[in-house]
């Protein structure tokens, strides 16, 4: 993991690039991607994987750390995997990104109301209520999750988990008809 952006580990460091990798939905495909990264010494910052709208394909969204290896080499080596169908590098300015976080936060006494208030401002959901803790979920742009996590930290995060980001290219004109149809891009 890059230490350059230590105060904001989930922030957009210029060492982080987003690759969306369309793969054939077959057993072991994630292991192939992971072992390629391990063998060639590439760093994965975060990774999310799920089937696409076409069940024959899965999409892997990888945030790669390119402080040690040029992105071009990573992309070319990835593309040598037979199961990899397409690789797109997403420019953060031209893509929509989402991530989900769940966090269990200390919320006893007076603090409970303040945590609920912060959650309200961020439009987060309260998933579970304990005697002195709350479990909260928030989805949104990674930067928004960073900000929320930073605020919660002040109250005491007991446990938290983020999914890693998923992303798709921004539509040129959002209202354009049928633009999202067709095989995954």
């Amino acid at each position, binding site marked *: 993991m890059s230490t350059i952006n230590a105060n904001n580990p989930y922030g957009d460091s210029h060492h982080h690039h987003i690759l969306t990798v369309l793969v*054939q939905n077959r057993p*072991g495909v994630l292991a192939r991607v992971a*072992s390629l990264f391990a063998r060639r010494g590439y760093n994965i910052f975060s990774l999310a994987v799920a089937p696409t709208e076409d069940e024959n394909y899965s999409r892997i969204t990888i945030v790669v750390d390119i402080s040690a290896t040029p992105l071009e080499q990573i992309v*070319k080596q990835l593309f*040598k995997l*037979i*199961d990899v169908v397409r690789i797109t590098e997403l420019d953060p300015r031209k893509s929509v990104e989402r991530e989900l976080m769940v966090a269990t936060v200390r919320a006893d006494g007076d603090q409970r109301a303040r945590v609920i208030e912060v959650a309200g401002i961020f439009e987060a959901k309260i998933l579970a209520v304990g005697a002195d803790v709350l479990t909260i979920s928030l989805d949104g742009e990674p930067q928004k999750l960073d900000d929320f996590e930073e605020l919660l930290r002040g109250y005491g995060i007991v446990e938290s988990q983020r999914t890693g980001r998923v992303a798709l290219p921004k539509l040129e004109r959002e209202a354009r008809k049928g633009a999202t149809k067709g095989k995954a891009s």
Partner: protein
Amino acid sequence: MSKKEILTGAEALIRSLEMENVEIMFGLPGGCILPAYDPLLKSSIRHVLVRHEQGAGHMAQGYAHVTGRPGVAMVTSGPAATNMVTPLCDAFMDSIPMVCITGQVSTSAIGTDAFQECDTVGITRSVTKHNELVMRAEDIPLAIRQAFHIATTGRPGPVLVDLPKDVLQNTMEWHWPTDEDVLESLPGYRPITKGHPRMIKEAAKLLLASERPVLYLGGGVLKAHAAEAVRELAELLKTPVVTTLMARGAFPDDHELCYGMPGMHGTATAITAMQKADLLCALGARFDDRVTGKVASFAPDAKIIHVDIDPAEQGKVRKPDVPIVGDCRLVVEEIVKAVKELLAEGTTQVDITPWRSRVNGWKEQFPLTYEPSEPGARLKPQFCLEKLRDAAPKNTILVAGVGQHQMWSSLFWKFNEPYSWVNSGGLGTMGFSVPAAIGAKAARPDATVWAIDGDGCFQMTAQELVTASTEGIHVKIAILNNTYLGMVRQWQEMFYGERYSEVDLSGCPDFVKWAEAMGCVGIRVESPEEIDAAIEKANSINDRSVVVEFRVEEFEKVFPMVPAGASNDDVLLHPTQENRREFLK
């Protein structure tokens, strides 16, 4: 064939291999692969029963090296599959087309730590171009077609197909996938073969405009069957050519433009020509560390044209000025066309005669050399190689193990034909030569196959000579026995103050008796007077394999040498040539 035909998975496997025109396979049966060995009895495919699975893998490689066709190996699960890891990795490093079939425990037992179970696809993932665990009998034909397609197209490599026992036993309705089925099933696999026209024109311009060009040939020239096209290009421009360890034979050694092998133990001329070049045209070569030496000071003034079918090789080590992704033969043919067009349009080639006379000067000053042995002293290994070379029948294929003897073989032999040299380049697998020679001979029964081996290498895989004897695949093995792990000993002498640690193999067995015990003819050569008769005898025997043990000088070193991590400018010459070093400036 409208009638439905029901086959077992095993029958479908063997028929699929027949459909792929497999004529020979190398293997050893065991529990999980047992079902596949039954239909093999009725098959047209010849099966060579090895004594160790690693041997099957290297035999398949030897076959592939000399034919360009995929070598096929079949073994069982667990330990057999793990024994196959070394040949797979070797084939992967040297881009050798190979299809390996492994047995696996039944689908219901996978993951239970069953007897002879191992995660074969997991273990071999990083040493294969692709691998696949087949879970249904009906998927076998497509898996086999895919395996051959992937192994032989793009950058060739090994593909493994893992077949659980019940998948081999279950029945399926026979069908043979079409080309379209294969392409459709591999939507992410479309190797680029045709070079970009603009880049090809750039390359042609650069070749004509350079004062000090060198064609740097790698194994890709042979994989792409590009030797003829490359020769046309070289002769058209009169460009000096160097052939890497994997490309020996891709351009004739006796050609006036050939300057031999570059790299750690290359000729001083080849190394220096690359260092001083203003253009390196790399054809199917990958800027391996054994060729470049210290990358930062490698060929500092050279622009780079890099032709390679693997896009990932472009810029992996050295940033090319003109990257061309494509099949080496197709691209070189196009470059030749583009050069001719430019010449026809009136572009003239820069006069490179001063460059060529400079390179020729190095060749004259720094020929390969060694000091002949003193009377009564042990033979020189280089002398043995010269003798073997000069007595070798036409169309001899040379195979080598790994170490000093491999470097001397590459340096002192004369390779004038493509596919006449088989060795383990990238992985450097000791023990490669005996089984690889058997595979080469199985593929080319018409050719004489000589394997040059070291005493260390031979002791790793010699048992495959039993396979050779029983299968009637007669090879000739020359052991250059210096009773040391010679290359390691050389490094300990040069870089570890002559502190020899665990390299003494003087407790070696009686190689002649061992050869005889394996059904071969064994010959020992200890003095120069014996050498001609021994080689003549070996060459005249065609009904048995022959092992000739040459007792050679223990302390002979391979020169030239670029020490690991050093710049190619600092190549160590043969001690008798060091006083002429200035000529290399």
